[in-house]
């Protein structure tokens, strides 16, 4: 347990310090959302209708952008080999790393959501709904994305290949995240059903993600 908490503390500390790049994700999120009014025109009614979709898409792309760092830096300086050989089960270590990554890179996105909701003319309830769905959904993005990150690090290919592998897996999260937020704003569906499915997706990814990532690291790293 202490080993895992030490790992989490270390990863968060590295991510937040100079060269960590966790906060670049927030900056990217901000830039994507600011770009949208230029693309669709500064029509406030249209923006408030598209708002949840824009925020979700921005968060998805931002979390994809930072995923590269999940294993790559540790692989380069050799600490990934130490983690693989340590007495802690690799699955748990992967889960701890993903949790740390989410705390450092995913949580700031949710904190930034109210500010960006203001830019997109979303009212209080809508912003709250989007923030809540992001809180429930972004862990699923991190934990499924971890599989792609583990594959990419074992193949020494990051970037585009990882995006191609991870994005199809994140489509269900996007569907139910946007559906739940839209349900609050326009109805007619209830908020509960898509939101419960979103939570279920996150819970499934907690189980599948670490095992798949650990299997990929075990079989892939020579």
């Amino acid at each position: 347990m202490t080993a895992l908490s030490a790992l989490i503390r270390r990863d968060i500390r590295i991510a937040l310090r100079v060269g960590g790049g966790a906060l670049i994700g927030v900056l990217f999120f901000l830039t994507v959302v600011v770009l949208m009014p230029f693309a669709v025109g500064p029509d406030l009614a249209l923006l408030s209708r598209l708002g949840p979709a824009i925020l979700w898409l921005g968060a998805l792309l931002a979390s994809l952008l930072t995923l590269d760092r999940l294993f790559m830096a540790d692989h380069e300086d050799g600490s990934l080999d130490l983690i693989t050989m340590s007495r802690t089960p690799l699955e748990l270590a992967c889960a701890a790393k993903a949790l740390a990554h989410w705390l450092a890179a995913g949580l700031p996105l949710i904190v930034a959501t109210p500010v960006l909701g203001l830019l997109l003319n979303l009212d209080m309830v809508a912003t709250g709904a989007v923030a809540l769905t992001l809180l429930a959904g972004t862990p699923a993005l991190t934990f499924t994305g971890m599989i792609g990150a583990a594959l990419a690090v074992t193949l020494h290919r990051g970037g585009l290949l990882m995006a191609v592998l991870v994005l199809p897996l994140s489509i269900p999260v996007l569907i139910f995240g946007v559906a739940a937020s839209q349900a609050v704003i326009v109805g007619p569906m209830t908020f509960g059903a898509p939101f419960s499915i979103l939570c279920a997706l996150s819970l499934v990814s907690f189980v599948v993600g670490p095992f798949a990532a650990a299997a990929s690291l075990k079989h892939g790293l020579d």
Partner: protein
Amino acid sequence: MTLIDLANPTRFLALTARALPWFAAATGILLAIGLYQSACAPDDYQQGATVKIMFIHVPNAWLSMFVWGVMSIASLGTLVWRHPLADVAAKAAAPIGAAFTFLALLTGSLWGRPMWGTYWEWDARLTSVLILFLMYLGLMALWRAVDDPSRAARAAAVLTLVGAINLPIIKFSVDWWNTLHQPASVMRMGGSSLDRSFLIPLLLMAIAFTLLFVTLHIAAMRNEILRRRVRSLQMMQASRIAFSSEMGAGSREGNASNEAGAA
């Protein structure tokens, strides 16, 4: 005759060389009978002649999931049993599965135009099959991105097993969500709701398509084995040329090159 006996690629090649013509002939005969029967099937009272698209569409859709299932078993073979031909099977199946999935989407959209009034609808079944298609393409990209086949095999196996979660979602999407795509009518509790005049040609076509997949898969596996042999022969030849030219240069230049190497 077990799966282990096929582990030797030479034995596999010899065995499939004899079996492949039989599979191909059976596929051709069954496809001919199935197509004839489908052409002779009566028109639907609601859908008219467009119902005949079903005889192509449904087998393609079944096969698109079946092929991922085959790849999942092959991936288990790669990761768990370390069967030498499992990754060959998984690699050879991916493009075939992608083709079946693409045809299922294409025929479905051609069928949807007269029936639903639209080529595409973002309904649960259609979306989940589209995700399956994207995952096939991603898997093929993964195979192509890495030049070492055994390294690519293990990565692709993990991704295949993760993607297998999508299969039950596709199968039950029409039951879980009330959508435009009609619910299951052949394989369901309480027997098929399809009339016999449609069911028999459909089952014939399904068997024919499965045989078509088996034939194509075995042929693709043979090609993959031969491709790997060619590759290793080329590597051996390249290393031999490099080695002999190195030796030749060393003997001609004598001590000069040794001194250069030391410096």
